[in-house]
């Protein structure tokens, strides 16, 4: 008999608390700043951590609270700085910011052992390959996060600047007077 009452009491308690928590979650929801969402959407989203924050969302939160400068994101480049400055209403001297040279990973075919470690860590599935087969990087999908370079046991993965072709060649900025 004791067993039965214990089961009934604990079950009803569980149900009650569950419903209470459900209602609380709906009505007492903590609204997050929509600005954070907007900024997070603007950021590259690769969670690379180059800004010193654990990911793009924490970085966006720091930006909104004013703890981080708008120039924090190296992969975002000048374009992101300009958009952030506009959103947050900050003045920023854009003439000093410089875009990073775009880099992509490339597999050196002589030293690749086909160990598969690199494509397991690639966040964008930019590396293709199979065990004991030479791997290859799909340059269009590579975001230059260098995660594969770190795990490669033979150092056959190296970062190279994006190859300049007629399609992506652009006029350089004129030298200032």
């Amino acid at each position: 008999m004791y067993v039965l009452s214990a089961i009934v009491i604990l079950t009803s308690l569980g149900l009650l608390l569950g419903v209470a928590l459900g209602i609380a979650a709906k009505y007492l929801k903590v609204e997050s700043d929509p600005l954070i969402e907007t900024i997070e959407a603007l950021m590259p989203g690769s969670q690379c951590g180059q800004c010193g924050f654990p990911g793009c969302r924490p970085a966006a939160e720091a930006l909104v609270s004013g703890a981080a400068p708008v120039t924090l994101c190296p992969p975002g480049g000048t374009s992101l700085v300009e958009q952030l400055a506009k959103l947050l209403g900050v003045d920023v001297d854009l003439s000093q910011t410089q875009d990073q040279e775009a880099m992509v990973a490339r597999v050196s075919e002589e030293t690749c052992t086909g160990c598969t470690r690199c494509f397991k860590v690639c966040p964008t599935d930019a590396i293709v390959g199979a065990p004991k087969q030479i791997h290859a990087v799909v340059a269009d999908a590579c975001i230059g996060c260098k995660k594969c370079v770190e795990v490669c046991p033979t150092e056959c993965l190296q970062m190279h600047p994006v190859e300049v072709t007629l399609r992506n060649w652009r006029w350089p900025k004129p030298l200032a007077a």
Partner: protein
Amino acid sequence: MFALFENPRLRGGIHAEEHKSETSPLSIATDFPLPKKLYIPVQQHVGKPAEPVVKVGEKVLKGQLLAYSQGTISAPVHAPTSGVIADVKDFPAPHPSALPIRTVVIESDGKEQWAELIVPEDPFQLEPEEICQRVGAAGVVGLGGAVFPSAVKLSLGRKNKIHTLLINAGECEPYLTCDDRLMQERAEQIVAGIRLMLRGMDAPKALVGIEDNKPEAFAAMQAASQSFANIVVAQVPTRYPMGWDRQMLRYLTGQEIPADGRATDIGVVVHNVATAFAVYQAICLGQPLISRVVTVSGAAVAKPRNVEVPIGTLMSEVLAFCGLEKSKMARLVMGGPMMGDALPIAEVPVVKACNGILALSAADIDEPAVQPCIRCSSCVTACPVGLLPLEMASRIKANQLDSAVDLGLKDCISCGSCSYVCPSNIPLVHYFKFASGELVKRQQAEHKSEQTKRLIEDRNERMERARLEAEAEALRAQEARAARLAAAQQAQQAPAEETV
């Protein structure tokens, strides 16, 4: 004061030293020796590159298809002479970067043996669709410099109820006289081309605009078009950039194309005069676009002249034909001095877009030091679009591209009038070209970042699915093990019972 009201139909512009008299009195040289090797890039037009259909070692005839057009906005390329395909490889393009482009190399056999040409009995009885189709198959593209596939423009004209075909014979760039000579020598053929274009577009009338510094060409065109009431030849003032389609249209018709629109929006299609000649060749002679008239001029050229050269000829060979003095050449330019591109090397092929090869001397290009902007606003007066070049440049200098776009950066036509008049020698157009490229780069980066997000999400989803599957698998394995264990136990018990 009355100067203000003199020409309300013209805005901005400049009048640079013409340098046309060196080449305009001389007839087009047609005795250019056939080069041993021709280099034909598969992309000489706006749109998708053509796809080669020939193999290395294959024998080709003059006019034979080398690469077919890909998709709606593209154009084929043809063999400029008969010979053997020596290679299909990457070769420096006639571009300021001289980066490589896919190129078909032909070793000529010197026989100039034509492929079979299809010539209609009466070209002017062809159906409009047929004309467009033939023009497209002949690889005709806009020869004024924009190299947009002409057939696409003709079909577009047919769909959009065009009332006027504007033939742009402004040739406002200094030095260049290839269109001028073409009109003087081949006016009849050009007029035939215009009539074919009219038929191809179902348009009622054509208007030819010629700058008034080409009176002979004007007279020749007028004489050739006399018997056709629907072709009107008009003179326009000599003022760069008169050859900008919007400027010429505004002058001749008083109509203005909306900033974000096209000429077709107001019922006009604009074609270059050399394109009309290419259309004549394509339909009446059945010949694809495999040669063009190029102005070779500049102070470093001993015998400046207009030369008809096969597409794919190396510029160095054309320059040598006109007596280049190498030591005097300080800069090589493809096109006109205002909008042309400086090329780092002369070993690049002549392409469909190439209307001029200029070997300029140091005195021609005199580059004084850049000085700070004094806000004299000469550039504002010179801008034919009505922009504020000085403001735009200062924003771009400070990397504020968005604000430059707000000032109308995207409407800039890179005509170079502002840079030409600037007393401080600020490279204004260079700033605008840089900024336009940067905007494209940003757009691409944004696109990539969207794609990256999608890839990351896809991967995360897949990993989650794999994790769940692995869990389910582990659960199943556990159950199976338990079942096996139970079965084994049962089996153990059963024989035990039996023995009892």
